[in-house]
């Protein structure tokens, strides 16, 4: 039996064909730009841009994009209620800005993940001079998230077969604590074995990949467009802030 998470599908799309290194750099720049925006107009444009990137550029289903946007906005939803009450229109604008930035960055990450295979994304990170150890750690974290999810699920099944049910009592908290503790201890043991298994196959801290990249003019144009969009949004934002 295989108990595991599923990889999200990566449909063919213009963004899926964009060289992952340029895409990673362009979308990171877009995310960084998003964190600088404060006024409603540029923030709305940013949201529209990231949604269009996801739906048109990445061919991600509209329902998936909307669902993810709502999920991203959920943690800051209380701000949308509390801040207007506390600070009127200004509070409302701050809450909306925080939500918009969060959703925009989240959608950008969604575009990146759904249009790029994970090994390719790691290779792109390496191509952008991210240290090899960090890339290897990210690779292991991705791979073992599936193993740990499987183990957590097996533990839950084992608990249920022995009559355990989640309740709001001390015993439940204790049992969940034990389970999480056991999972962490097993993870630590596994980390040591995985490290040994990597060392015996010659790993010395450098990350190597089989992915080869070839930059085309379209890749550079895409990156330039992303930078231009960020610069335009930031300039508009600064101008709007000055008017206010």
């Amino acid at each position: 039996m295989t108990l595991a998470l599923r990889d999200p599908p990566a449909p063919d799309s213009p963004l899926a064909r964009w060289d992952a290194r340029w895409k990673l750099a362009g979308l990171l720049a877009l995310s960084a730009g998003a964190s600088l925006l404060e006024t409603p107009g540029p923030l709305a444009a940013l949201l529209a841009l990231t949604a269009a990137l996801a739906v048109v550029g990445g061919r991600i289903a509209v329902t998936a994009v909307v669902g993810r946007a709502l999920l991203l906005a959920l943690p800051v939803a209380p701000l949308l209620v509390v801040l207007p009450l506390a600070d009127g229109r200004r509070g409302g604008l701050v809450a909306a800005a925080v939500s918009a930035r969060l959703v925009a960055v989240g959608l950008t990450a969604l575009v990146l993940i759904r249009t790029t295979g994970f090994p390719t994304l790691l290779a792109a990170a390496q191509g952008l001079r991210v240290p090899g150890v960090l890339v290897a750690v990210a690779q292991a974290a991705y791979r073992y998230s599936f193993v740990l999810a499987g183990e957590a699920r097996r533990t839950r099944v084992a608990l249920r077969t022995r009559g355990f049910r989640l309740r709001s009592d001390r015993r439940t908290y204790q049992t969940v604590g034990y389970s999480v503790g056991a999972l962490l201890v097993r993870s630590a043991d596994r980390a040591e074995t995985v490290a040994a298994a990597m060392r015996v196959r010659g790993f010395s801290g450098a990350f190597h990949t089989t992915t080869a990249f070839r930059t085309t003019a379209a890749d550079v144009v895409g990156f330039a467009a992303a930078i231009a969009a960020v610069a335009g949004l930031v300039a508009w934002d600064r101008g709007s802030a000055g008017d206010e």
Partner: protein
Amino acid sequence: MSDALSARQLAHTYADGRVALHPMTFAVRAGERVALVGPNGAGKTTLFLRVAGVLPGKPGHLAVCGLDPALAAHRSALPAKVGIVFQNPDDQLFAPTLREDVAFGPLNLGATAAAAVAVAEEMLARVGLPGAGDRTPHTLSGGEKRRAAVAGVLAMRPEVVLLDEPSMYLDPRGRRELIRLLNGLPGTMVVATHDLKFAAETCQRVLILDAGHLVADGPTATLFTNAALLDRHGLELP
């Protein structure tokens, strides 16, 4: 024929004072198939980790394909000579796809990406997983994971292959396929197991370990018919 692996008065004590291996002496000739059998806690995995240089240390002397794993300068050259297939394939298959995982070793040894991919595809086909390079490890069955782990080690073309409990987690079909695969491989092989039937089907010689002591060394056919010896060391006749 020269020795691929030789141990002289080899012993190992962990940092917490637990003695895992008492002084033992043996040699494995190049091309030989040897089963390392014994109950749980006998010291089989510790011995493997010493041979591969993962657990560096003294006392005793160990030579693996002419290299001394106790020496840091030799340890860095060991991955090209010795490969270990770990007990749990999930400990070994760490990359997001099988191609990346099998290519991992060759890339570390300096192969180009194209050469590493070619070796990965060749080894995946050799272990019965042709065209599976894009598959993710978590979608494989236990037997497939084991074969992919073997491919990852074979891709480095080691002179000595160490297999730790290879029949664990396998159903009868997976076990049969693995036996067929191992019997078709060239080179020196040491199989640590307490599955004596598996050992009998893959190895001509047996080393019996018990509580860190090397208690017997001889032909499989001879030792596996000595019921009293097997019983004394917590093993059962195949």
